[in-house]
């Protein structure tokens, strides 16, 4: 039997889910995310925006990262560490250059019908970190009251 691996740091990871690329999983991840948000004392509005950011990141992982390939996995993790609530979404895609993503609020982009996902993540979270060394790993960070 293999050791339980420490893919995500186990002390601070509340729940870790690995699933096949499918949008259907979003319905299952939402109640888990909301429950943890609840426990951390986020009010309903905050929960709404945190889930919106999370959903955008999950969509990108499934669509742009794994390109809907059902054999590719998405790793989803919820961490609580030093007053920070962190949501981790990692895909097995080819990565991309975040700095090259056009700013959707520039005049020439305002009427584009896509390209606002990362912008919304940044708007609603305190911090958004991208690591594209291997696949794409997004870390959505929100500070919370409960300093546990």
């Amino acid at each position, binding site marked *: 039997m293999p050791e339980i691996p420490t893919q995500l740091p186990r002390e601070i990871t509340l729940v870790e889910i690995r699933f096949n690329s499918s*949008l259907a999983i979003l319905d299952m991840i939402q109640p888990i995310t909301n429950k943890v948000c609840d426990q951390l004392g986020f009010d309903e509005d905050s929960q*709404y925006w945190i889930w*919106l950011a999370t*959903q*955008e990141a999950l*969509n990108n992982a499934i*669509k742009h990262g794994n390109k809907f390939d059902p054999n590719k996995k998405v790793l989803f993790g919820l961490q609580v560490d030093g007053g920070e609530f962190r949501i981790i979404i990692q895909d097995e895609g080819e990565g991309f250059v975040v700095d090259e993503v056009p700013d*959707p*609020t520039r005049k020439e982009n*305002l*009427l*584009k*019908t*896509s390209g*606002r*996902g990362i*912008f*919304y993540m940044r*708007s609603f979270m305190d911090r958004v970190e991208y690591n594209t060394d291997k696949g794409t790993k997004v870390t959505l960070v929100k500070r919370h009251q409960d300093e546990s």
Partner: protein
Amino acid sequence: MKIFHRTSEDVTLLDIEGQITIGDGDVMLREALHALIAGGQKKILLNMARVTYMDSSGVGELIAGLQYVQEHGGQFKLLNISKKIKNLLFIAQILSIFEYFNDESVAIASFS
């Protein structure tokens, strides 16, 4: 998502129920608008009172819908957008491209 059709004078009202997100509602909304334009309806009012959730794909569909209707010489307006949806459009700096109303009769009267 569900879409219910109504007409009031020469305005077509689309009552949207549910969420407009990637894979749920985005394509449906597009198809509904294309069908209306194909059928010669040019005054379209989207009632979003019962939209529970919308993400960036939904925002994209609203913009696509507006452009599509305008390109075909029609008018596309929004009714009863929630504070949260208004916020989504506002921070993306596109709230101002939409005409939106909170009163149905005022909205209908606004179509020329």
